[in-house]
């Protein structure tokens, strides 16, 4: 199946937060008490009850305030750190459309995905199970748009065939974030400034510690295990065990003593 993706054009966004509300409504997520921090950004980050969040980047340029918005959510990576690090096959998985879904029944509550994600997206809910944006795979399977896309009044959020959405954006002369990173993100952005301004990594990658664990330590461990067993056996049949000579076992006086 052709890969599907979100195209999120932040230049069109008016920060109405219909996406946040639409998501909460469809996914039956509870409201949460929040605190006024002197900023429209609220809640301040993704929570177990908030799968997508409007971030407000405020830049004070003397007499002018520059406002940038970012719709933060699961990026649905093709090379997904959460899937790579999750011990329980199927707790996090790729759908046929290339999106990252989760199955709480298979979640073993190890917390690895929370720390294996390059974008700090997955959260643990009150039952200690993984939650995050799953791109409304239930709606997609029935030919509908994800709830956030349906709710968006400005076409900031679009969803569809990944290749044609990217081609369309490029034809319009826009620069795309996430086309090839992590083998291509499933949430591709059009940003109005550098990724760092939006607190996004310029070159998103699986955390080095997770890469080293899965791609270096693991193969080394499997090779090392059989290597050590093999070396022990080889030593036994070549140099042999350090046997006591006949009679040495008994209480003979020490040589030279």
């Amino acid at each position: 199946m052709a890969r599907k993706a979100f195209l999120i054009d932040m230049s069109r966004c008016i920060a109405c937060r219909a996406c946040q509300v639409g998501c909460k409504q469809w996914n039956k997520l509870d409201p949460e008490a929040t605190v006024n921090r002197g900023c429209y950004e609220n809640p301040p980050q993704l929570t177990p009850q908030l799968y997508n969040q409007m971030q407000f980047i405020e830049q004070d340029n003397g007499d002018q305030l520059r406002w940038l918005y970012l719709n933060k959510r699961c990026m649905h990576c093709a090379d997904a750190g959460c899937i790579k690090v999750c011990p329980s096959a199927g707790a996090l998985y790729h759908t046929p459309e290339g999106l990252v879904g989760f199955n709480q029944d298979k979640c073993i509550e190890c917390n690895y995905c929370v720390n294996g994600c390059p974008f700090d997206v997955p959260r643990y809910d009150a039952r200690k199970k993984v939650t995050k944006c799953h791109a409304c795979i239930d709606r997609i399977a029935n030919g509908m748009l994800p709830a956030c896309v349906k709710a968006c009044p400005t076409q900031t959020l679009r969803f569809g065939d990944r290749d044609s959405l990217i081609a369309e954006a490029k034809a319009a002369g826009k620069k795309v974030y996430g086309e090839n990173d992590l083998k291509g993100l499933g949430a591709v952005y059009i940003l109005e400034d550098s990724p760092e301004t939006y607190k996004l990594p310029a070159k998103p990658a699986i955390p080095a510690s997770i890469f080293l664990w899965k791609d270096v330590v693991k193969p080394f461990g499997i090779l090392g295990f059989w290597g050590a067993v093999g070396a022990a056996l080889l030593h036994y049949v070549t140099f042999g065990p350090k046997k006591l000579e006949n009679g040495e076992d008994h209480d003979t006086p020490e040589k030279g003593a």
Partner: protein
Amino acid sequence: MSKYVERFNVVERVLHWFMVVAFFLLVFTGLGLFAHTFYGYFNFFGGPHQAMLIHKWAGLMFFTSSLLLAFSHLKDLFTFDADDVLWIKKCGGYLSKGHEDIPQGKFNCGQKLFGIFSLAATFIMGITGFILWFAEGFARGAVQASLLLHSLFFVLFVLAAIVHIYLTTLGNPGTISSMLYGNVTKGWAKMHAIKWYRKVEKG
């Protein structure tokens, strides 16, 4: 006169076997968390949740017994001399067929290095394990570093254990009796730990 000489008292033996049981519980419950490949090992423990619970408590068992054992031998472990250099130069005599004359104390150089490694690894596994147990209370950087260190020292610990088990059973006949019954034959003591034997004989 007895043919035997005492090597490990009953407390040391019980601590050691306590540690062994905890070690194998940790290895087999931990494998399922180490990689997808070994996820099936959880089934031996009645599923992932029980396996992880056993892993955490076995970790506490191991940490405690390992530290107690190491601290009771701290002086022996950290005392090195010229004979230890000789032991390393001759690879412990393991790369020749006959017996090589390398006078050693209660523990030979290799055993001391294994003991020191085990002590250091116990600390690393204990600290990183604690961070992973309560991962939600720690920064992402700390948890990520812990995941790497915990997996790396898991592998190193298993490799060290394979060498340890081979050398104390098949590799050096007569050694295992010290951990089973507490004593070794005097012949064994003269061959493997002559400096220790002389000290014991003097009383």
